[in-house]
């Protein structure tokens, strides 16, 4: 016989202001099977929990219903309290009379009735609850970090320094990411490479980190603690063990006309190349698309000059398999290439460039060795127009979100220009200045006040060429929308930060969700910002949303902390609220008929095939089996199964049905 205890919480005034809590408690006491029913001001407080514990012990309760807030808030609290009093924690249920009732209704009779009905359904449910045991899953203490930009580097180092193995995968020939392309960084103007390269070297030298550069993730199977990754190591066309990184091949390569990716297309590189001098690893790759040998079958000059005979023209891609327990996705961002704004003339005029190209112009390792010279004729520009929000915050033509970093880097660009060209005139066209962050507002003010950067509030409508100058037409909205026309020598567009081109494809390989802009979705925008909805896969850096360096680094360390917590135990304990396929007595064995339509429907790849065999080893039938480590308890398979052979523990058909019946059969109640 069920002995249910009901505990009604006032939640201060959150519930009691609109719901008659004493009445809820007295009505609940009348429900068959309820042997104890009380109300209390703060049930989650220590004395409140004591009420629950004492009742379990004194009245021998077989089930507990706490009528309070959402189970997302305090279910763990009360389940722990029940466990401490000797009751299986899964025999405790929350009746949500706050979010589902008191917060959304006016004070009144009907509101109290609804609260009573909610309690009634949960009492009916808890009578059908079964004691469940947590699931234990083993953990492989190796992390896979995807992306070797600053976020991936930071996450890899933090995890490795905690004593765990890390596999770092970078698709480019070198780690470093966008940060390695930057000249100086806001708000301190320290040299980007100077602060980044020590971290890159640390990655290369760390005994716990295995680096796969020029590699991509082929596929990921498995589940939290037990992933299996397949990594494609693209052929560098040389034997990395023999190559000493002397660079002779890159100097001798006769083809030097390929736009350098590292220099954002402003510089040129040979077909066999190291992207930049501090590259990690410092080993060249052959760009097979452009290399003369791959195109015509002739040349092989690099092979001839190589002192260690390391060149391997016929090297195939290699697939590496690895067992990992957690994944940190740090695949970064891209910038929206400004060709979608034809009125700004990007691509048409050589001297309209994007922010990343300006970084290369200002960088000592760039094509102009750090001198600001415009791409068309190499002249030092006298007037430079910087256009913020080129694509961002523009629902009509670009993207509706704020790319967040542009205000700051535009101020930085204008300052760097003034520091290098003292007589130059920088003009920034902006919509708003968003400089939230430590020392950020001060930085922008310094650009305006100390470095004399002129800020014009207004959008630019058109850019066109006139007599060797670029005419920037816009309006100054602070001066009554007066039209502004500026003759500039160079225009820098602060183009929007967008997701990587392959972001969608990778998300599907990883089975993580992404938003409308193809940025990866965090599990909760406030409280779980580094987790994805797939357990064991974490996010770091700008693959989740546009971010600056300090934010990327902070999130990377956050993700690393999550991985560390996961790896701190050899077994993972999970809630047993998962789907199970039924078992029946012979000759049925299971009502599952093995159609496996559930397999395709499962978003977590949790459904496998299981062969039921007799004692003689004879195959009796093949049925579905849910992997408890992978299952997230979403219930998609349950809804799909025609024969109702799958049930969710804790939310079984029987439990949900009795909840519905409790509502329908509440009987002759007033109204």
């Amino acid at each position, binding site marked *: 016989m069920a002995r249910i205890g009901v505990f009604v919480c006032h939640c201060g005034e959150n519930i009691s202001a609109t719901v008659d809590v004493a009445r809820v408690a007295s009505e609940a006491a009348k429900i068959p099977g309820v042997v104890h029913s009380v109300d209390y001001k703060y049930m989650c407080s220590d004395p409140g929990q004591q009420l629950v514990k004492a009742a379990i012990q004194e009245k021998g309760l077989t089930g507990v219903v706490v009528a309070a807030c959402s189970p997302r808030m305090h279910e763990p609290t009360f389940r722990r309290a029940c466990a401490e009093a000797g009751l299986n924690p899964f025999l405790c249920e929350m009746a949500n009379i706050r979010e589902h009732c008191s917060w959304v209704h006016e004070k009144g009779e009907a509101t109290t009735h609804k609260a009573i009905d909610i309690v009634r359904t949960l009492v009916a449910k808890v009578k059908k609850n079964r004691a469940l045991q947590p699931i234990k899953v083993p953990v492989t203490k190796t992390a896979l970090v995807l992306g070797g930009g600053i976020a991936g580097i930071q996450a890899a180092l933090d995890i490795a320094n905690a004593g765990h193995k890390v596999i770092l995968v970078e698709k480019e020939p070198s780690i470093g990411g966008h940060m390695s392309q930057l000249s100086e960084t806001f708000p301190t103007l320290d040299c980007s490479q100077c602060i980044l390269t020590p971290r890159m070297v640390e990655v290369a030298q760390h005994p716990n980190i295995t680096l796969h550069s020029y590699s991509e993730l082929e596929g990921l199977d498995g589940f939290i603690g037990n992933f299996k990754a397949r990594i494609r190591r693209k052929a560098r066309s040389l034997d990395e063990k023999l190559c000493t990184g002397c660079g002779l091949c890159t100097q001798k390569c006769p083809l030097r006309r390929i736009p350098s990716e590292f220099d954002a297309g402003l510089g040129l590189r040979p077909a066999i190349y190291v992207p930049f001098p501090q590259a990690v690893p410092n080993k060249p790759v052959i760009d097979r698309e452009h290399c003369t040998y791959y195109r015509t079958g002739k040349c092989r000059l690099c092979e001839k000059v190589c002192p260690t005979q390391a060149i391997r023209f016929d090297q195939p891609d290699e697939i590496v398999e690895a067992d990992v327990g957690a994944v940190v996705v740090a695949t970064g961002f891209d910038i929206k290439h400004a060709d979608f704004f034809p009125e700004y003339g990007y691509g048409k005029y050589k001297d309209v460039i994007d922010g990343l190209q300006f970084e290369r112009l200002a960088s000592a390792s760039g094509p102009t060795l750090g001198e600001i010279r415009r791409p068309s004729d190499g002249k030092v520009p006298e007037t430079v127009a910087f256009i913020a929000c080129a694509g961002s915050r523009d629902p009509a033509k670009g993207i509706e979100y704020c790319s967040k970093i542009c205000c700051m880097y535009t101020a930085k660009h204008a300052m760097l220009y003034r520091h290098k060209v003292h007589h130059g005139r920088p003009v920034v066209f902006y919509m708003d200045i968003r400089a939230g962050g430590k020392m950020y507002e001060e930085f922008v003010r310094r650009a305006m006040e100390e470095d004399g950067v002129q800020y014009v509030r207004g959008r630019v409508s058109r850019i066109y060429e006139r007599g060797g100058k670029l005419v920037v037409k816009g309006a100054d909205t602070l001066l009554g929308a007066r039209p502004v026309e500026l003759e500039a020598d160079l225009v820098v567009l602060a183009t929007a930060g967008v997701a990587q081109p392959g972001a969608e494809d990778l998300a599907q390989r990883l089975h993580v969700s992404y938003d409308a802009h193809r940025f990866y979705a965090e599990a909760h925008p406030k409280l779980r910002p580094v987790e994805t909805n797939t357990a064991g896969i974490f996010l770091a850096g700008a693959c989740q949303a546009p971010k600056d360096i300090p934010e990327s680094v902070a999130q990377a360390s956050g993700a690393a902390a999550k991985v560390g917590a996961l790896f701190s135990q050899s077994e993972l304990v999970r809630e047993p609220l998962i789907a199970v396929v039924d078992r029946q007595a012979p000759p049925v064995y299971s*009502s*599952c008929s093995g159609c496996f*339509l*559930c*397999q*395709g429907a499962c978003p977590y790849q949790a459904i496998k095939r299981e062969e039921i065999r007799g004692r003689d080893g004879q195959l009796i039938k093949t049925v579905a089996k849910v992997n408890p480590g992978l299952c997230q308890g979403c219930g998609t398979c349950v809804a799909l199964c*025609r024969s109702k052979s799958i049930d969710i523990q804790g939310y079984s058909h029987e439990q949900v049905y009795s909840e519905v019946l409790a509502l329908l059969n509440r009987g002759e109640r007033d109204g």
Partner: protein
Amino acid sequence: MEALRNKARELLAAGTVKVVIGYGRGSGGAARAVFIRDAARSGALIYDDSCRQNLAVYLMKPEVRRLGKAALVASPATLRTVLQLAAENQVPEGGLLLLAPAGGEVAVLAELSAVEARVAAQDQDLGRAEREELARYEAMTLEQRRDFWQEQFARCIKCYACRAACPLCYCARCTVECNQPQWIPVPAHDLGNLEWNVMRAMHLAGRCVDCGDCSRACPAGIPLHLLNRRLIAVVRESFAVQAGRSAKSDNALSTFKPDDPEDFIR
């Protein structure tokens, strides 16, 4: 017909199959299913316009499976059924021979790919009378359809003949038999009849190959195939797939493609 009998005799005599499932003459001149295990009895097989039952239904019966490897006389609808059953992992590759009679000849199909090719070569369009029947149904308003089905289902006696006749209703335990909880009321009253018939149709959404045996089996003469045909049309329009075309599972209701039209979500 002679070619079919000869082929059955040959297969049974050689031991290639243990049983040939086909049509024979039953009482009152009607065609009925026959299970021939002895080569000498192959003469009992017939194949003509009266042979309409979808024999694939027997493949799913445990007592038939125990007879051993079967050769099945397969109409075009039966071929589609076998493909759908294969997509649902109910027919192992190579576990079955299909005897598809056409124009005095019999094609023996052993591989699912051969079945796919034959189905692809067949004319799959509905006949004129069937098209008109569906068009009349689709022309009804939602209220008219509701009234139509209430009237039809009022005659349902819950005998489950539609389920027994359907080769895709092969669950070891039907939902209608679940009583903890009792999803579908047992008695043949309005609510129970509606719930049963709607559930039957929905469980076949994206799976039904339109053999029409549900309507033929119904002793109350309810045009159940109309529900299925309408669902087939909806699934084809929404997801561009049709059951019974391929032995691979691309079940519309359990698979997801990033380029699925999602215009039904509003």
